[in-house]
């Protein structure tokens, strides 16, 4: 372990991993309580379209993905409401269109290269200094926004109609939460990749749900579960030479099923 910690790429990976685990741990609480796990999966897959647009147009792929994911998140919500269709249908439409846009642009650019695989499957060990700064700033902003509106989000999660009657601006906060979710997804892409990012958005919250007695304890347990998954997953991947994203997701799943077993035994 000390040998692993001595390497600069591992230090950077740990730094980014800790930030992202705290961010997704917080978001995961609301994703699980609001039964939005498919929204997370939909936006993360849709982000592939944003990454491909970035590659094709010569922008920073992560920045392009942030903007694109926010547009898709708002598009999902608006289409579901205005089109009077269920949210899962809206997600299905946006996510398949975005994947198609991504694949079309990759075909046009003829550069199905290693970098794109890094976004699809994650490559935390190749994370750059600039990406760490981007992760730090976005994580701090998103965490601050969620904590700022924690009580309002808590009431919306409990019952949206009750929140409206209490004078809370539910539509504004729902959009704000979708933006926070989209940003969290995109900054997590470099850690576990587009395909597996929804695990970080769902599994820590699901683990916390088993033990939590209140919202704040659920947030704390969710962040702790995410943190342990990322750190342990990274060391496992270093030790056994497996892809870090897969190591993190498998550790996270192991924590969940062990918790479930312990809870059932109680």
């Amino acid at each position: 372990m000390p040998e692993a910690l001595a390497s600069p790429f591992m230090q950077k990976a740990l730094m980014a991993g800790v930030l992202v685990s705290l961010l997704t741990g917080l978001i995961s609480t609301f994703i699980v309580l609001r039964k939005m796990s498919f929204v997370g999966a939909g936006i993360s897959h849709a982000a592939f379209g944003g990454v491909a647009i970035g590659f094709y147009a010569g922008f920073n792929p992560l920045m392009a993905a942030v903007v694109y994911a926010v547009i898709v998140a708002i598009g999902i919500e608006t289409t579901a409401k205005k089109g009077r269709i269920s949210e899962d249908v809206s997600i299905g439409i946006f996510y398949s269109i975005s994947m198609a846009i991504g694949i079309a642009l990759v075909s046009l650019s003829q550069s199905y290269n290693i970098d794109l695989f890094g976004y699809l499957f994650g490559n935390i060990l190749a994370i750059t200094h600039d990406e760490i700064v981007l992760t730090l700033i976005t994580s701090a902003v998103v965490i601050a926004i969620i904590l700022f509106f924690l009580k309002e989000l808590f009431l919306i999660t409990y019952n949206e109609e009750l929140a409206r009657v209490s004078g809370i601006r539910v539509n504004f906060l729902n959009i704000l939460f979708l933006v926070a979710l989209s940003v969290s997804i995109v900054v997590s892409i470099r850690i576990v990749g587009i395909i597996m990012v929804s695990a970080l958005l769902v599994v820590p919250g699901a683990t916390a749900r088993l033990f939590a007695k209140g919202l704040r304890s659920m947030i704390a347990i969710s962040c702790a579960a995410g943190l342990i998954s990322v750190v342990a997953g990274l060391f496992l991947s270093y030790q056994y030479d497996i892809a870090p994203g897969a190591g993190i997701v498998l550790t996270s799943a192991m924590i969940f099923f062990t918790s479930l077993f312990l809870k059932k035994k109680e």
Partner: protein
Amino acid sequence: MSRAIKMEDLSVVIKGKDVLKNINLSLDKGIFLGIVGPNGGGKTTLVRTVLGLLRPTTGTVSVFGRSPESLLTEDGAFGYLPQQQNIDPNFPATALDIALMGRYRSAGALRWPGKKDREKAVQALSIMGVEELKDSQYSQLSGGQQQRISIARALAGDPKILILDEPSTGIDVVGQEDFYHLLKGLQKKMNLTILMVSHDIGTVTTYVDEIACLNINLYYHGNPLGALNEKVLTSLYGKNVDVLMHTDVCDKCERLRK
């Protein structure tokens, strides 16, 4: 006596379908009104227009002389209990956490409820007879206890009017009697105006001061005993209604009224 709610020629059309038609209804302050009717008869829609969550297509509604939308921004005007089926019974919170939600508005934006809010929430739990459950997990309580805690939440905000949508769902028959009795006590003790939606016409008539029979149109509004006749019930529920009454005058109703 001034008006708590006044509806004039109120109609609501949703997706081209009449949900409420030409409703004229007024409720005085301090009165306990029961709204009964079949499923799909517009009871919840009527509640949503009173709460300012839905604008009438035509006609007007005012609550304490103001538009419901403007009242939404006023502190503590509505104490609202949504249908229990729309609330996750396993929500991770203690009974006190739930009661404290009623103080969120008073606490103000971006602030957590303080000591005074906590005292108010505990007081509301005490009024509902569930103070000893304040540290219990909401998910581990019975349907009846959860409902009492939800009403404590509604009361914690010092509402002028309590609006309850099918509050007896999930409570057994004996529990329902206790629950309605408690509501009646609250009305008298706190001089509260109460608007309660229910499908249970038999029990509700025993406890409310006035009843409104709603099935898209308002078929009856007045003394509860006046609703218990074949003409009103047939308009409300269709042709296959048999009215069974044990006595000409309900002793229990009279006792409660006194």
